């Protein structure tokens, strides 16, 4: 198992950067030195209360100055609502870094990033890291339901990303789903076969995985799953393995969250 820490950190900033979307940063030199793109943190939000009971998983969204970590989150329920009320200086307990990160592409490999909504969180960190070692542009398809939810456009441009944006209602960028862009893209004659890195809602990942099989492309997906512990203990975060003879289920927190698409049984997803 990778090295894992439990630390009580102090929030440096926690601000809304879009409709229901917030960016939270805290300082931890030790976590920052361990964290890799694709890994996540389990954050305890209860403080004085036992409701919410469980920690909540969040991808590591970026590292700054070698000692600051960031998470990007959407307010969707009890835990994230509570989190959004936390202020600078408030203490929170963080466990991490957890799970296996992305396998970095080889220097000459072409990459294609596909992100849906908050799926941008870990992919942003990945481009940030790749940007330091690779010079060429990264192609990214990024989708949101509507323009009001779109975040990070400027930051992605700074990161040398060749971005195509979709919104479902067409209020910004191209109207449609990111998977439509993928269809189009893969429909073209490709000079070089890209490696796909995808993160977002499960139905989106399923489509992308199936495309990757059709076009015989290497594809990494970062999955979500209901998690209690994030530590490989509770066996709550099961996903069905494609080749279920050896191992019927993988555990997202331990075996993932990033999986080569072919490892997963997409039928049941």
């Amino acid at each position, binding site marked *: *198992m990778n090295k*894992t820490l*439990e630390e009580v950190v102090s929030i440096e900033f926690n601000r809304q950067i879009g409709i229901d979307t917030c960016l939270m940063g805290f300082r931890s030199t030790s976590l920052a030195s361990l964290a890799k793109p694709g890994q996540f943190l389990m954050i*305890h939000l209860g403080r004085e209360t*036992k*409701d*919410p*009971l*469980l*920690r909540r998983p969040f991808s590591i969204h970026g590292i700054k100055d070698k000692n600051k970590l960031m998470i990007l989150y959407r307010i969707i329920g009890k835990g994230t609502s509570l989190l959004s009320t936390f202020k600078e200086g408030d203490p929170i*307990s963080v*466990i991490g870094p957890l799970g296996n990160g992305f396998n970095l592409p080889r220097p000459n490999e072409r990459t294609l990033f596909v992100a849906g909504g908050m799926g941008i969180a870990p992919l942003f960190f990945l481009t940030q890291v790749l940007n330091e070692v690779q010079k060429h542009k990264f192609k990214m398809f990024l989708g949101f339901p509507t323009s009001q939810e779109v975040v990070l456009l400027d930051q992605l441009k700074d990161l040398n990303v060749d971005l195509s944006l979709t919104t479902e209602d067409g209020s910004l960028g191209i109207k449609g789903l990111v998977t439509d862009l993928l269809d189009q893209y893969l429909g073209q004659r490709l000079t070089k076969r890209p490696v796909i890195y995808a993160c977002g809602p499960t139905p989106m990942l399923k489509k992308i995985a199936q495309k990757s099989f059709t076009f015989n492309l290497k594809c990494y997906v970062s999955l979500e*799953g*209901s*998690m*209690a*512990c994030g*530590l*490989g*203990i*509770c*066996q*709550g*975060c*099961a*996903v*069905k393995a494609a080749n*279920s003879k050896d191992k*019927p*289920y993988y555990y997202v927190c331990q075996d993932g969250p990033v999986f080569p698409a072919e490892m997963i049984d997409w039928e*049941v997803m």
Partner: protein
Amino acid sequence: MVSSPNLSVEIGGLKLKNPVITASGTFGYGNELIPFYDPSLLGAIIVKGLSLRPMPGNPPPRIVETPCGLLNAIGLANIGIETFIEEKLPFLSKINTPIITNIYGHTIKDYAKMAKRIESVDRIAAIEINISCPNVEEGGMAFGTDPDIAAMVTDQVVKNTTKPVIVKLTPNVTDITIIAKAVESAGAKAISVTNTFLGMAVDVATRRPKLANITGGLSGPAIKPMALYLVHKVVANVKIPVIGLGGIMDYRDALEFLLVGARAIQVGTANLINPKTAMEIVNSLTDFCVREKISNINQIIGGLKVNGENHEKGGDKKNK
């Protein structure tokens, strides 16, 4: 000179350095134990429930959070007793505290076979029988709601091992004392109270159960008052020690169970939230004893005051 308090307790001949045990299914098998602290500090470790052969567990979603509770339908996903002994036990053996296996069988024969197998393994200190899992089709809880079957399972395990046998009861019964007395008569050396409470949750948006298994077992702080009540009740009705669990999150919760007469306590769901919980409870119990000038934890066990009287101590009295 301030001497450090004696926290050790005895459960059916097994001496524990303190009364804090990790509950089955919430602390892993062994090498998955997160190295947040040295597990040798614990009173004992109960590993994930094992069956004769590996079990895949239920399809996901397997867990859902409820108000102050965790509903799980893991379905006893486990690697089977053989693989456990081969692959996991060597690591566990390095830990300087008793290792207790929690076993589950589809049939009474399964239980007997597992007991026999475990009997040959020195490093396993005791057996906890799970006749109370709500998340499996056969056996499981069905065995734990009928006093005769509960006694038969106990009897078969006891016959096949010389190790102390602990029976873990289900709370989902009308009168838990009947089951408790039945397994006591059948030779159980201790009783764990309680496993999870049956529950379910519905996703209003999709109109589907939130668990693929539809129903699951509820654990965590939500169940603490009920678990405590059951422990209180069982303690008053058996002579053998009772191990209390259900929603213990900190040393104060642990003390509540000890006060009603639990000889030891188990930490379950709390491990998943704060993996250091069990160790912190050991430390805080020590501090508490020092602060309160209690030299031996046994002075607390059963120390509940009811109408000016001390509550009868678990294990030190007659049935009534």
